[in-house]
């Protein structure tokens, strides 16, 4: 006999409102259905009513934790429209802030993963040391979380020698602490037992479900936008793409710890090799008409932004694909028992937490619900095209639909 249990939208195991329906056979999960759409924020439509400069703080609020990745993605997307290179120093500063943001995000996740498996002293260790990197971000940008450092055509604040000195000192503390965490994660038996062979995702499945970020790298596939399609100063800054072949939550933990160490080295390299010069160029308010796509490796995975400009000072269309959307179908694969791989109910929180979910960033789906008739439906691509065609024809414009 199988029973269905709903988890979410409000549930202690979930930090953000999403609904999962688990079909259980005894203690094992045999089927998972995810329902997204609880946090549709309407950011894309709001962006069409604001100009490009006003949109920067708005883009920053797509995601609180990986705000730097989203703002870099937005800024370089609009810069691609102008087809003008930005100063090299600005690109280095972008990499520094991005990597500090990654360190902060990964330390936060390591703490949460430890908390989810009930290892709360590890959680308090990482969150205490996360304060170091938060203070460094505050020193460079003036704010702990919402950095507001990126702008179209460069960055808004420079890094002088005294700040660089403090940055290096903070990085030394972080490196020492992160190496200690790596030792804990490798040696601590309770952590190993709890994370080994939990949330299995084989390399073939990872590719099939187009997983991104540390989730796919823990399945031994080298995918990293910083290496595959370098942006900002990543073409010059050397780093290793970290992969693990354990294909489980333990691998995801180790990938994140190693990436933190890589990021510390990248920030040091940037500080040593940063050229002098201006930090921003002034660009006209309205970019030329055209469209562009930009990709950035956010702490959670690949972040894709698309912009279409019609020559005015407001974007005609803006599209955001946050990394969690890429990981969601892989998550369902991880949560389903098949063959000798069994998912217990107790494993659900740690597998859910394993992809570092940021549901509110990715929620852009809409489902039509008729509460009176109790009907639910969504539009297909063909129906949407027909709807758009009718709307344009009503306004007297002949639409071209492919």
């Amino acid at each position, binding site marked *: 006999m199988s029973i269905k249990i709903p988890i979410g939208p409000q549930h202690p195991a979930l930090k953000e409102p999403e609904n999962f329906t688990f079909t259980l056979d005894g203690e094992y999960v045999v089927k998972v259905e995810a329902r997204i759409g609880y946090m549709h924020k309407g950011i894309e439509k709001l962006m069409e009513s604001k100009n490009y*400069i*006003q949109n*920067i*703080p708005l883009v920053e609020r797509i995601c609180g934790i990986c705000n730097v990745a989203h703002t870099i993605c937005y800024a370089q997307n609009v810069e691609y429209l102008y087809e003008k290179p930005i100063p090299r120093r600005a690109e280095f500063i972008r990499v520094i802030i991005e990597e500090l943001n990654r360190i902060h995000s990964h330390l936060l996740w390591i703490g949460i993963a430890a908390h989810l498996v009930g290892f709360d002293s590890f959680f308090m260790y990482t969150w205490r040391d996360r304060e170091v990197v938060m203070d460094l971000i505050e020193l460079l940008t003036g704010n702990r979380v919402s950095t*507001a450092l990126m702008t179209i055509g460069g960055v*808004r604040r420079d890094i002088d020698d005294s700040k660089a000195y403090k940055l290096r000192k903070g990085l030394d503390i972080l490196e020492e602490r992160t190496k200690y965490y790596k030792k804990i994660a490798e040696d601590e038996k309770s952590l190993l037992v709890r994370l080994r062979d939990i949330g299995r995702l084989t390399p073939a499945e990872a590719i099939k479900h187009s997983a991104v970020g540390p989730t796919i790298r823990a399945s031994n596939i080298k995918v990293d936008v910083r290496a595959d399609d370098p942006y900002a100063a990543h073409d010059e800054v050397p780093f290793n793409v970290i992969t693990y072949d354990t294909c489980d939550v333990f691998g995801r933990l180790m990938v994140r710890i190693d990436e933190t160490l890589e990021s510390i080295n990248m920030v040091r390299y940037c500080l040593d090799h940063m050229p002098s010069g201006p930090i921003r160029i002034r660009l006209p308010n309205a970019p030329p008409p055209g469209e562009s796509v930009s990709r950035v490796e956010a702490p959670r995975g690949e972040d894709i932004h698309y912009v279409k400009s019609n020559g005015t000072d407001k974007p005609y269309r803006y599209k955001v694909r946050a990394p969690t959307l890429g990981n969601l179908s892989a998550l369902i694969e991880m949560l389903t028992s098949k063959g000798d791989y069994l998912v217990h109910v107790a494993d659900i929180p740690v597998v859910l937490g394993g992809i570092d979910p940021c549901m509110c960033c990715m929620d852009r789906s809409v489902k039509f619900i008729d509460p009176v008739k109790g009907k639910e439906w969504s539009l297909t691509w063909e129906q949407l095209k027909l709807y758009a065609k009718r709307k344009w024809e009503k306004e007297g414009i002949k639409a071209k639909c492919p």
Partner: protein
Amino acid sequence: MSITPLLLKHIFKKRATILYPFKEREKVHLPEGFRGELKFFREKCIGCGLCFRACPSETIEMSVDEKGKRPIFYLDRCTRCQQCEEVCPTKAIELTQNFETVYFDRKSTIIK
């Protein structure tokens, strides 16, 4: 037992918290580039409206008085992104280090 040396180290450390807001108010740590409450110098303003165009949260509205166009700031909507200060050609807007922005009534958040 690896927790013991860390524990001993922290017993003799200074406390991390401060007795805000009644005592030790001056000990509040602010970074040098902190973005605090907005301050407006009306005599410097030339009414170009650039701050109005840069503001993401509709904090700034333009009004007309005897000198021409002048901005009105609704500080309850301000996100302190500092974009208005950056674009101002005459430095009439400045973000101060004041972080205590609590008011008893909404009207006092409006600066003219």
